[in-house]
């Protein structure tokens, strides 16, 4: 039994070495590809990363960062009227904005409204357009 066990140990080690060496080559190649892709991405794409699958116009969130003070609040109102929206845009844009715009806080009563395909006329409060991307996305400042 001892010999059998030792033969089994040797077999396990040989399998691990063989597959480990082959996979090392494969993994290093894949990681190299990933590194190249990451290095070739522009600053915006790298910063948005996961948001690229749902953010239609990066300028809007950059504008929001510029316009809304860090201790300010905002409210994302999403709707279907965004040109080029993906199926992820409407349900998840508020989540992404929360990550991207922090330390600004989301607040339903906020002074700043990020209209992402919303019906501006249907907003509960009167607001003036501060920035308009022309694709259904705009930033509004609510009137007090």
């Amino acid at each position: 039994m001892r010999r059998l066990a030792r033969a089994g140990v040797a077999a396990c080690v040989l399998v691990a070495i063989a597959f480990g060496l082959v996979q090392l080559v494969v993994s290093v190649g894949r990681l190299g590809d990933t590194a190249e892709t990451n290095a070739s991405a522009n600053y915006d794409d790298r910063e948005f990363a996961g948001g690229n699958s749902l953010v239609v116009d990066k300028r809007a969130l950059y504008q929001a960062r510029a316009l809304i003070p860090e201790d300010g609040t905002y409210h994302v109102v999403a709707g279907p009227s965004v040109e080029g929206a993906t199926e992820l845009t409407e349900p998840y844009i508020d989540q992404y904005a929360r990550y991207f715009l922090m330390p600004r806080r989301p607040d339903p009563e906020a002074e700043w409204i990020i209209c992402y395909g919303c019906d501006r006329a249907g907003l509960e409060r009167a607001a003036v357009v501060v920035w308009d991307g022309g694709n259904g996305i705009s930033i509004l400042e609510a009137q007090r």
Partner: protein
Amino acid sequence: MTVRALLGLTAFNAFLLGVGVATLAALRGWRSWGDLARCAGLAYFLGVSLFGVVLTVALIVGVPFSMASVLLIGVALSAVAFVLRAPLASWRPSLSPSREHGLGAVTFVFGVLVVVCMEALFRAGRLAGLSAWDAWAFWVPKAKAIYFFGGLDEQFFRELVNPTYPPLLPALEASAFHFMGSADVVTLHLQFWFLACGFAAAVVGLLAPRVSPILVWPFLLLVLTAPRVAGRNLDPQADFLLDYLFALAALLLALWLVEHETWLLAAACPLMAAALLTKREGLMLVGCVVMAALVASWRDRRYAWPRLGLVTAVALAAAVPWRIWFSSRELTGELPSAGALALFDNLDRAWPAFESVVMTLFDYDLWLLIVPLALAAIVLGFVAGARIVPTFALALYALVTTGLTWVLWAFTELELPFVQDEGVNPIVRLSASLVVTSAALVPLLLDAAWRGADGREDTP
């Protein structure tokens, strides 16, 4: 993504290593600088665990989070470890010169290969954007909230997805932001590179004096290069941190079962506590590792069980404040919506759940042959006449498989059968725990199989 951020992150990890070295000095000590270098991986994870647990508890009780509080906690932990050196002297092993394998050809060659792998991983993570959904949806936002607002901000911790997930990782990430000088979510990926390096070093360091290097390095390389591990272990989310903590706790307990050195059990305690505060699955995994240790120590139960019970109680105690925090705010999501024991209302899910877990664990495209090799190593251990380590490993693999099956069975919102889309079914992420643990346990099992006995008695 600046050099300043890189240097800051390196300083943060050196800081964690410093806390860990102080802890190691209290628990074990070292016989030489070479011995300390060998234990550096374990020391690093002791630092990550202790600092993470204490920082998390501090945040829960309302200590304001800042660079000063981060530094203060690290210094305080080191000071406490220094003070405890004398009272804990009886725990420390006598560090007489032991069987050292030195830097032989195997260690040199495979060490170089692992370095090649880690270098490729570093390059891949250096400029990585935050793409993983869970990372930007809640793990990193929680870290940003702690960093920007100086604590567990009520609004964000209530509104973000999975509000009951424990905050140890976000707290560590927020500390890393302070050292980097900004909430740099690109450079943050490299924090997970440090963790991967620390894990590899800890496994090698713990096994080097006990197991032949030809048994240690190939399996470590196999795990590090497995497609899923190499492809996702830099994602800034808690999965792989939990896996590393679980794997190292399992290894320390396995060694303690054989060697009965108190410091091994004591070192497992902060790792288990940190696992409990890293993800909600930590409770299941810690339960499994403790149960497996209880089973494997059946013959020795009068000695082992009270000690295991004490260490488990201490680890669980560290997780209580977080449960009080989220329960007092009526946050939910810890248990299946139908209740933890509503399994019998969904009997039709039991077999597909089990099938999904097994299929995932044996999926070559995810994990290569790691789990089949681990099972072979368990069988070989039994065949050769070893008992403790194979029993521990068998119980651990069986219990975790059962636990993963329960997750898929009980959380009825998860679709079955298994698919690789994590948003639909998290089993791929969860099954990594056993795969990563294999890097630590398989060499020990094969060593036991080769010698026909469980362990050596001269290797503290």
